[in-house]
């Protein structure tokens, strides 16, 4: 264990990326993640890395495609409207099986919306976003320490499975200042014999997402699905809080929302409403395994900073065994402890 240092969420993303061996960053300015590019603009040159402000999010994601093709660890970062612009590129990256990390520090939509924090890009992140049958590994942090841990994990998983990973945070986490332990992590970077490095001493390499023959493209899709099945089996992550034998009610919340939900669980227990919490950490693969044993649970309450997106995955995981209720706020507003308590009393 190292020494704890105080760090802001957005800077922690940059610090963790550099410690993970990320040496290329391409992005386009947007609130509320602007401290991250500012941080990397300072730090990347000091470690011999590349920081480049692109002309748009579209250009940035395609620069990411290029750098990943060339075999380096690479990241881009944006917020909701910018992530929408990147979707075609993300689909190409998934199709070409390139390891990259994409940060979305979400703000509220639709449209230009507002710069306040939100979880309303859940569908876009976990259900596709771009065209075609592909998946992103999606990780949702709820503390600055977890920002560090999940950025590193995101790079490692992207490389392990040759697939894009998304770090999906909410605006307020970027602004939050908390103590973190950088630990003694060593990035796990595999050899990349497929990368474009010049064909000296070997056959040429090709990075493409084009399979013009339908039979070949179907085969490629089946290979992708095999990979996704492996990820689903091995990479489900979640945290449980007071989800013990006594618990009769369960709150499900992710990211910073789960911090508020935790306080609500404690208050509810004081009132005698025996409540527990599941906090999904991997949003894809969704932690279905967390819902394996619901035998004492009477009802589940899903709380989101959206009009109800993750609730659909909870319902799929629960598959009708227990009623699933929802409470959410939109537009950059977030459910308060009292509102969650009120909803618990109502459904009891």
């Amino acid at each position, binding site marked *: 264990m190292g020494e704890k240092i105080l760090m802001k969420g957005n800077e922690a993303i940059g610090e963790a990326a550099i410690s993970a061996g990320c040496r290329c960053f391409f992005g386009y300015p947007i609130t509320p993640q602007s401290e991250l590019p500012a941080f990397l603009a300072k730090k990347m040159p000091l470690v011999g890395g590349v920081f480049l402000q692109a002309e748009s999010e*579209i250009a940035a994601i*395609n*620069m990411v495609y290029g750098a990943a093709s060339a075999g380096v660890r690479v990241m881009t970062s944006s917020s909701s409207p910018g992530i929408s612009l990147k979707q075609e590129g993300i689909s190409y990256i998934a199709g070409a099986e390139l390891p990259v990390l994409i940060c979305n520090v979400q703000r509220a939509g639709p449209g230009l919306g507002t710069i306040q924090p939100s979880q309303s890009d859940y569908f876009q992140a976990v259900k596709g976003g771009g065209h075609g049958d592909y998946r992103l590994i999606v990780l949702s942090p709820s503390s600055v320490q977890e920002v560090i841990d999940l950025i590193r994990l995101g790079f490692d998983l992207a490389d392990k499975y040759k697939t894009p990973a998304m770090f999906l945070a909410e605006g307020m986490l970027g602004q939050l200042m908390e103590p973190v332990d950088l630990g003694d992590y060593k990035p796990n970077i595999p050899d990349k014999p497929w990368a474009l490095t010049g064909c000296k001493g070997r056959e040429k390499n090709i990075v493409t997402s084009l399979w013009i023959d339908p039979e070949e493209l179907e085969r490629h899709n089946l290979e992708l699905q095999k990979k996704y099945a492996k990820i689903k089996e091995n990479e489900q992550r979640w945290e449980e809080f007071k989800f013990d034998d006594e618990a009769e009610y369960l709150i499900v919340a992710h990211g910073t929302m789960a911090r508020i939900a935790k306080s609500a669980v404690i208050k509810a227990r004081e009132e005698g409403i025996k409540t527990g919490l599941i906090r999904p950490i991997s949003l894809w693969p969704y932690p279905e395994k967390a819902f394996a044993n619901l035998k004492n649970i009477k009802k589940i309450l899903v709380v989101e900073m959206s009009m109800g997106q993750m609730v659909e995955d909870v319902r799929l995981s629960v598959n009708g065994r227990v009623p699933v209720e929802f409470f959410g706020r939109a537009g950059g507003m977030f459910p308060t402890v009292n509102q969650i308590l009120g909803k618990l009393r109502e459904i009891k």
Partner: protein
Amino acid sequence: MEKIFGMPKSLTAKPFSFCAGCTHGIIHRLVAEVIDELGIKESAIGVGSVGCSVFSYEFFDVDMASASHGRAPAVATGIKRARPNNIVFTYQGDGDLAAIGTAEIVHAAARSEKITVIFVNNAIYGMTGGQMAPTTVLGQKTETTPYGRTVENQGYPVKMSEMLSALDGSNFIERVTVVTPAYVNKAKAAIKKAFQYQIEGKGFNLVEVLSTCPSCWGMPPLKAMDWLKENMLPVFPLGVYKDNGNK
């Protein structure tokens, strides 16, 4: 017997997928010959685009990435920044470079990216079946300008070499064509220069090649070459638009 003329080493044995008489094939060959002659086959990384040249990654026998429509200069930027010692080039059509990818090419030039761009201008969208391109000339009939391109409806053709040479970041820009043997020799020299500059660490370098599309222009290959001379050369004058090396 000594073989004095054969396939360039930087082309694979795969037969081209272009229509008969399409000058994309000549341009591919010139790029491959230049890569051979400069001895950069083992360090070259090409970026293909979306258009009739979408399979360029199968034809060039060097490491290749295929980019989404218009974004090859951004992909090339990512590769070159990650691996500055490799020689990185894009191969793009006019729809790709001068319409959907205008922002990417302009900013790659503005940043002086040390890359080489082969820009094939055939005044039409070949791959999608002959729609108007940004470079379609006034009066030219296409699938989407059945009455001919007019200033009132579609405005003027875009002149990329002129535009990009106005940017401080561009280093070498020349417009050439391949419709006569003499023009082919000039085109090859320009392509060579555009790679040579990159080898010397200079960017941004682009060669615009006026090319024929007999299929979508609806005429036989030889007539297409005449059509290009009559209709494209007056709008897109050949020549060196920028050459910082000769300053």
